[in-house]
């Protein structure tokens, strides 16, 4: 019973955010479509990537406020977490289907007018795979893989959000600067100094493995792995999380 109430509360927040996201997207698309009318083509390449960024931010910002509100209403952490997972699953499903519909409408529009072009990330990366299957199956497969991608991205954001909640200000600052600096400065530097560029080659190979144009199931496998790891880590962090002053 309480799980149902928590899901209702979270869905309300997520739907509000998703509504804002889609309205902004449609608004920007229509705006640029009109501005560039007859003068060029407005292209969005890799549309799902935008949704991934949106979901990461939603996941990132959805912990603190929700957690405190649930503590205020005497909801156990277990119920919070189960409800969160169910909500993320449903959001992944709804957004994956919505995005596929938008991409299909985009394809239809680009056939009618050369003014707007909306291309899906999945359609571009797994172009050769999609050409092998009939349109219905390929779109269903795209939805299926996208659901897992969206869930994984949201959970990664959620995990980062919990870590940030548990950190003090100094640690937050340290991680905010330290992680990008390690990824984009130290890692390439160490790679060229000590590994002769092998680390970069390994990362590149891993990316090629995940986004192998012929086999989307590598991406699915990675997403399932990320989801599993995030679920375990998030639960370990949440089960001992305590209410803190705002």
């Amino acid at each position, binding site marked *: 019973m309480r799980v149902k109430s928590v899901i209702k509360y979270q869905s309300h927040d997520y739907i509000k955010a998703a509504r804002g996201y889609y309205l902004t997207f449609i608004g920007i698309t229509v705006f640029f479509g009109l501005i560039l009318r007859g003068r060029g083509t407005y292209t969005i390449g890799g549309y799902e990537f935008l949704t991934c960024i949106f979901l990461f931010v939603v996941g990132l910002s959805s912990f603190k406020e929700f957690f405190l509100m649930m503590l205020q209403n005497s909801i156990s952490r277990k119920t919070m977490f189960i409800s969160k997972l169910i909500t993320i699953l449903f959001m992944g499903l709804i957004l994956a289907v919505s995005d596929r519909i938008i991409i299909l409408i985009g394809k239809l529009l680009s056939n009618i007018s050369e003014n707007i072009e909306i291309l899906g990330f999945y359609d571009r990366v797994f172009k050769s795979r999609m050409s092998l299957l009939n349109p219905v199956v390929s779109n269903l497969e795209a939805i299926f893989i996208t659901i897992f991608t969206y869930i994984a991205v949201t959970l990664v954001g959620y995990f980062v959000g919990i870590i940030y909640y548990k950190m003090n200000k100094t640690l937050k600052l340290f991680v905010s600067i330290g992680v990008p600096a390690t990824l984009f400065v130290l890692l390439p530097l160490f790679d060229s100094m000590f590994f002769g560029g092998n680390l970069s080659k390994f990362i590149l190979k891993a990316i090629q493995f995940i986004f192998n144009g012929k086999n989307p199931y590598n991406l699915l496998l990675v997403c399932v792995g990320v989801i599993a790891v995030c679920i375990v880590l998030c639960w370990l962090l949440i089960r001992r999380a305590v209410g803190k002053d*705002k």
Partner: protein
Amino acid sequence: MLGRNGAGKTTLLNIITNRIFPDTGEVLIDGIPVKENDDALKKVYMMSENNFYPAGMKIKEIYRWTKEFYPDFDTEYANKLADMFELSLNKTVKSLSTGYNSIFKIIIALSVNTPYVFLDEPVLGLDANHRDMFYRLLLEKYSESPSTYVLSTHLIEEVSNVIEHIIILKKGKIIKDESREDLMSYGYAVSGKVSLVDEFIIDKNVIGIDSIGGLKSAYIMGQVPKGNLPEGLEISKMDLQKLFIKLTDN
């Protein structure tokens, strides 16, 4: 629940309501362990000094969601109280003053209709009129539908006439857990002319003295002496605040 600053009042309430965890021990509500247990947790509501509600949420939305989590929440009564306190339901939490921040939470606590309601410093920032209104409403609510209301406060004088049972905490330990009547019988107050009171208290354990003009009141630990009192002296009940200071003094 009374205690000096840092005695552990808020910590205890936070442990009872599963907001933080105890190092040792277990909290039971009606015999059910409260830790991560929704069946036990739904029986409690805590109005805390800290605000755990979303800052950007409107009060009317908060009431709507409270009803979702506490199905017995009386929205009609909450709206009535909001009118009485002149609280605008369209305001967001972040736009409320300290006093109104307490008021909107007081209203929830009084309307939530759950068996155990914990109020941590409920009258923080409230003016005298609103404090008086709160105490009256609390008594009214208690007489109509009795629940267990636990008040944690520093304003001892104000609550002394509202409470039935007193728990005094000192440095994380319960030092008194008694009915108000029993606790008040620990001592008595004697008042009268300064010279008479001074003479009377010579061999007594005096824990506090108030003087106004030529009159004096002394607060004494122990039983009221048998026999006739010297003329001009009057015996009355112990002052709770004086007793509290005595019991919690280092």
